[in-house]
């Protein structure tokens, strides 16, 4: 008696779970392409501001380079680099990377670095940090990200590329240190990668055009 009732409850639950999963899967199928296109558009919109007015005359989205995982950049998935040129000479590179040690999942960052290794601008593309605390790293919510503009690996010294609470030079956010710590670490790692690989990045052939889409 009791056993059959447990059985029935289990079957009901499984049935409803199957229906709900089908519903989500169907919605995902329908929205999948549009969401990817929206994210790409948002990324391309963010590219120019992250360059802080540097002069360039190349089409930014035409010089995409995918760095396949595993790599030394932050994040486990493939990293993307947009290279920016003025004529033939490289001006800057824009990295799309994920800081993985945030408070709630990956923080997608767009990090602009000029050819001399200075940060031109940083933009948070996506995150799931706590509203009112960690989400203040977003450029729309506070100007916390601006403190990195113009900084490089030697300014401050690599040992001071931390938030103040960890003995470094950068401000944290009141009530939230996990998110800023993750972002600072991601920027430092990206700068280090750029420092070691800049020549190769600017010399490499761009990805096939149709992969990028226009």
């Amino acid at each position, binding site marked *: 008696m009791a056993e059959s*009732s447990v059985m*029935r*409850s289990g079957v*009901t*639950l499984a*049935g*409803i*779970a199957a229906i*709900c*999963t089908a*519903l*989500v899967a169907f*919605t*995902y199928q*329908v*929205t999948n392409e*549009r*969401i990817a296109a*929206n994210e790409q*558009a*948002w990324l391309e919109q963010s590219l120019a501001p992250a360059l802080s007015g540097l002069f360039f005359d190349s089409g930014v989205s035409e010089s995409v380079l995918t760095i396949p995982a595993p790599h030394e950049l932050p994040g486990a998935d493939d990293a993307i680099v947009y290279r920016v040129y003025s004529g033939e000479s490289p001006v800057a590179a824009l990295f799309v990377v994920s800081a993985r040690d945030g408070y709630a999942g990956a923080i997608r960052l767009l990090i602009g670095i000029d050819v001399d290794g200075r940060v031109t601008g940083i933009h948070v593309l996506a995150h*799931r*940090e706590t*509203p*009112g605390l960690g*989400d203040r790293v977003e450029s729309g919510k506070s100007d916390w990200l601006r403190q990195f503009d113009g900084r490089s690996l030697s300014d401050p010294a690599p040992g001071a590329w931390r938030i103040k609470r960890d003995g470094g030079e950068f401000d944290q956010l009141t009530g939230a240190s996990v998110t800023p710590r993750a972002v600072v670490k991601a920027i430092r790692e990206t700068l280090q990668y750029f420092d070691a690989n800049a020549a190769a990045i600017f010399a490499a052939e761009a990805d096939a055009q149709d992969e990028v889409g226009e």
Partner: protein
Amino acid sequence: MNAPNNTRFMDRLKTGLWYENPGLVQLLGLCPLLAVTSTFINGLGLGIATLCVLIASNALVSATRRWLRREIRIPVYVLIIASLVTCTELIFKAWFPALDRSLGIFIPLIVTNCAIVARAEIFASRNPVGTSIVDGLVMGIGFALLLIAIGIFRELVAMGWLLALLPPGAFFSLALAIAAKNAIDGKQKSRKLNR
């Protein structure tokens, strides 16, 4: 046949908007209410998203109520609501990307809006599908209108008094809304007594 149905709908609408407004009277779903109402457009966006989830979850809970035994009803509510919220989030990301970015994590957090579980438990699990959808509609509209009203109020006041945009401003605005409702109700009651 039609007329009594209409008056019944008007009664239900009044219940959702006024007498049992989820935000003003039942004080449910206050976390999103306080957090996103800093502007009119955010209030509108979250209001509509919550309304859609509430209608769909009431419909699904009511449609499956015959198979729901007491011991599994809560997991089933959670399943249904979580799936619907995920779908809503995907739809927002696909068709309203700017609104999605501005509301951010509050769309997935509709899952935790207790107004939705409350309507599933109090109403949809005991009533037929049609009435449950109406209940979801009126309660959702009541909640959405409150979000919109507080959003407009805070956005307007913030032009002169910036505190309205900060979290304390949300508490003050909600308190004012509840006080206003109670004052109106009190006046009506005393008028009835005097008569």
